[in-house]
């Protein structure tokens, strides 16, 4: 007889008031000391599992069937008060955004102290002692000082360590980590993951690890459950699910994720989107049917059960064995070898930017955001800029588009000196697309008028019907149906909005497109669509792309060259393949190692994190 499971969720349904299901028949179990990963795209219902356990479901949602057992206790039968008493003691939580998860007006020490008092450490001295012990355990330097600090004085990675320390302080039986690294820099992500793994070992805690990142789950989890549209579609040992998925959805997710090593392929593109809870109600059979590359007639009417295909490995598909037949589209001959133009679109020589900062009391200090940048972008070249937050990527974009003044060196953009040419002259030739697809789109304008908005300031004199046609053409370029011109931004998904943003930038036939983290925050499948779209566009249009991204694999996937930025300087640049296979600079090595997932080292809060703290 095996040990009793720490968490056992049985046949759990969470429904809206209308009866539409957010979670549908979810079955999960975690054995003592194990890590279970829950993977899925945005809206799959991952966070609902944690909320159901904590009894903090949003208003309007309720458990309508099934039970949650924790350490032999049936949570769903207990009073709210008893359930709350378990939180912070027997069940710990690690949040997604460490930067906002602690109160900015209380010191770290006050917050940790209150938590320790709640879990029964009586005297203030003992609490401080215990806090210092815990901080040392999670690799935080100078714990005594940290206790007196406020949140804004710590970096995201350090705050996450504090929160991990708090979560494990009471030796809980279960820790729930909902996307604990999504908001952190790449170089910090793996350390935090390693730390969670190490803490669960030291405290013999079970962990429910929620993530949208397959690779990450493969790294740390013992078991994995893939969630799609509120249902578990595949469950089993982590390695086998990542390496030999037996459900088409898991396989497609895998093939849609750009990777850093191995042969380059095109990314798998899943058509359409995950059905909403309302749409799911109307679907009788497999909820993945509309997007599944191997769906058959049986799938439409008959829901596949989650059945065992090998020991401990279950898949909810009628034909799990056919999963392997799904292959990524091969690279076409012209996908990779684009002919670069001879002209330079941008050239920076000794480019620098220093800010004069006034603090609240009016004292002035000089902050050098960029120092001595030298680089070129050729016509039709796709250049990636990588580097962690604070490395100067955004400042560079601001200089290029003229939102900030240049304080040193020369920046030549499309043949004009950026420092001396007025901003208007660059209109049309340089276009920007931002990370947040929503923010740039006026919610009260129709898509058709949004994509052709740049005509308005130029006064093109285009007739209404010609403008409409142009809008349709632009939408076609980004693979959106022409009837979308009459919709409003709110009626579009995140990925569709981002495509509208791209169409809009292309309206004026720019020579240079700057894409600032345009795929971060998007789901893997949507990200794949956008990346493949950019690749296609490059063949037709003739623009250069400056792709700013924290994700090296994304850069490797579509860029020719990459610049690596570190603390305001370019520390390395060259063809993507060279940089990623044979990095020279220590920082690039660290980045690549982190992205490859083999940092393997659990160290204390690194140099880097400590430096962040100084800012």
């Amino acid at each position, binding site marked *: 007889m095996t040990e009793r499971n720490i968490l056992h969720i049985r046949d759990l349904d969470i429904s809206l008031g209308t009866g539409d299901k957010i979670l549908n028949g979810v079955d999960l179990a975690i054995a003592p000391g194990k890590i279970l990963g829950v993977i899925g795209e945005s809206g799959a219902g991952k966070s609902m599992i944690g909320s159901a356990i*904590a009894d903090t479901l949003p208003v309007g949602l309720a458990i309508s069937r099934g039970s949650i057992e924790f350490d032999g206790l049936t949570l769903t039968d207990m009073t709210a008060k008893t359930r709350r008493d378990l939180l912070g003691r027997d069940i710990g*939580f690690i949040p997604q955004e460490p930067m906002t*998860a602690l109160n900015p*007006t209380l010191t770290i020490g006050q917050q940790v102290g209150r938590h320790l008092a709640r879990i029964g450490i009586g005297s203030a001295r003992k609490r401080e002692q215990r806090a210092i012990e815990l901080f040392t355990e999670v690799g935080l330097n100078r714990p005594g000082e940290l206790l007196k600090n406020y949140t*804004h004085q710590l970096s995201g990675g350090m705050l996450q360590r504090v929160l991990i320390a708090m979560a494990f302080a009471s030796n809980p039986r279960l820790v729930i980590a909902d996307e604990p690294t999504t908001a952190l820099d790449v170089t910090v992500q793996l350390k935090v993951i390693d730390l969670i793994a190490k803490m669960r070992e030291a405290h013999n805690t079970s962990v429910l690890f929620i993530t949208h990142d397959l690779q990450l789950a493969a790294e740390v989890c013992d078991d994995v459950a893939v969630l799609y549209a509120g249902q578990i579609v595949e469950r089993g040992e982590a390695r086998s699910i990542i390496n030999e998925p037996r459900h088409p959805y898991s396989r497609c997710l895998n093939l849609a994720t750009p990777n850093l090593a191995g042969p380059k392929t095109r990314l798998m593109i899943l058509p359409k989107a995950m059905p909403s809870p309302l749409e799911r109600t109307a679907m009788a059979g497999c909820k993945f049917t509309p997007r599944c590359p191997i769906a058959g007639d049986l799938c439409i009417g008959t829901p596949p059960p989650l059945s065992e295909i090998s020991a401990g490995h279950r898949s909810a598909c009628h034909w799990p064995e056919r999963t392997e037949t799904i292959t990524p589209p091969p690279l076409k001959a012209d996908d990779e070898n684009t002919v670069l133009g001879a002209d330079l679109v941008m050239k920076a020589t000794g480019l620098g930017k220093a800010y004069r900062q006034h603090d609240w009391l009016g004292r002035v200090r000089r902050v050098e955001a960029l120092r001595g940048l030298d680089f070129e972008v050729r016509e039709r070249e796709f250049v990636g800029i990588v580097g962690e937050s604070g490395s100067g990527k955004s400042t560079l974009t601001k200089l290029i588009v003229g939102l900030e003044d240049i304080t040193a060196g020369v920046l030549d953009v499309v043949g004009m000196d950026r420092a001396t040419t007025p901003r208007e002259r660059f209109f049309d030739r340089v276009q920007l697309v931002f990370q947040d697809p929503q923010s740039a789109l006026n919610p009260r304008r129709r898509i058709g008028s949004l994509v052709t908005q740049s005509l308005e300031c130029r006064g093109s004199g285009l007739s209404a019907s010609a403008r409409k046609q142009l809008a349709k053409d632009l939408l076609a370029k980004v693979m959106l149906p022409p009837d979308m011109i009459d919709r409003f931004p709110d009626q579009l998904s995140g990925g569709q909005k981002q495509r509208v943003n791209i169409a809009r930038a292309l309206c004026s036939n720019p020579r240079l497109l700057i894409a600032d983290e345009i795929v971060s925050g998007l789901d893997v499948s949507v990200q794949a669509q956008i990346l493949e779209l950019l690749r296609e566009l490059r063949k037709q249009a003739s623009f250069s792309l400056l792709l700013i991204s924290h994700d090296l694999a994304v850069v490797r996937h579509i860029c020719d060259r990459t610049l690596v930025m570190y603390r305001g300087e370019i520390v390395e640049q060259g063809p993507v393949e060279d940089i990623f296979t044979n990095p020279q600079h220590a920082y690039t090595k660290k980045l690549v190692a982190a992205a490859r997932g083999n940092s393997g080292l659990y160290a204390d809060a690194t140099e880097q994190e400590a430096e962040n703290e100084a800012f």
Partner: protein
Amino acid sequence: MIKAVIRVIGRRLMAIVPVFAIVTILVFGALRILPVDPAQMSLPPSATIQQVEEKREQMGLNKPIWEQYAIWFKRAVAGDLGESAQYRMPTSSVVFERLPATIELVICSLILAVFVGTVGGILLFSARGTPFESVGMTLTSAVMALPDFLLALLFILLFGVLLPIFPVNGRLDPGLQVPAQTGFLLLDSLLTGDIGIFASALRHIALPVMALGLAFSPTIVRVLHSSLINTYQQSYIRQARLRGLSDREILFGQALKNAILPVVILVGTQFGSLFGGTLLVEMIFSFPGLGNLMVKAMQTADLSVIMAIALIYCATTLIFNSLADAAAYLLNPKLRTG
């Protein structure tokens, strides 16, 4: 940290110089444009034209207006605020005699407003989602729509006439006397241990304080309510809940400190209008403070008194603004440590 706070206050107070200059010029100009002749006002109606003319000369009223202002200004800087035409006494003693009454009124009103506002804000927030919330919202809107002087008249009607539990004029029952020490009646009577006088003073000040304080409190209720709602959407509140903290601990231990900041800023910026509100309210309750004095001085074109009171209004408002700034600074660790 103390030094930084002093610097914050100091920086705010530097504004006092230009503000004083502007306000005095405006008041001075306005009074000179008005078709009243201070010389004539300060003489008995039987005075001859000759006498008035002499008086004008004596008061410097024949000089160009900027020169008059310069004279006034030079004297004011030296601490001489002139003589009140109405009382024939140095302006400063006329004004400072009334000042404690008004300060007492304002401070009591402020305490009442902040107390009622904070408690009300917390209650309204705790009632969110229930019918009590909409009742509270309607009630606060209604009171906010009433200006303080209307509230004063309403209170006179309710508690002075219909249900006469509070006196409606003056600071004390007739016949009572306190040996003035500070001029603050509540304080003086406590210092001399005279409970009778204390009670009388308290009963007299009750209605004006209720009028001023309760007129201001609904704004505080609303600001705190929405600020709390805002704070509760922050993820540190959710995270605190996930650590098992009770609703009480979350409200008082986590949320309130963050949510109170807008209230502090509100009180700082609205203090001026509370102070200004004393003008009408003092008049309505015949409360012998600055406001009352100001109204009389305006009726008699008592220029030097008007100028002096305007200066006091400005100074108090500015001082209070800077105190609120300092409080906001202390409440926000990002400013303090950044």
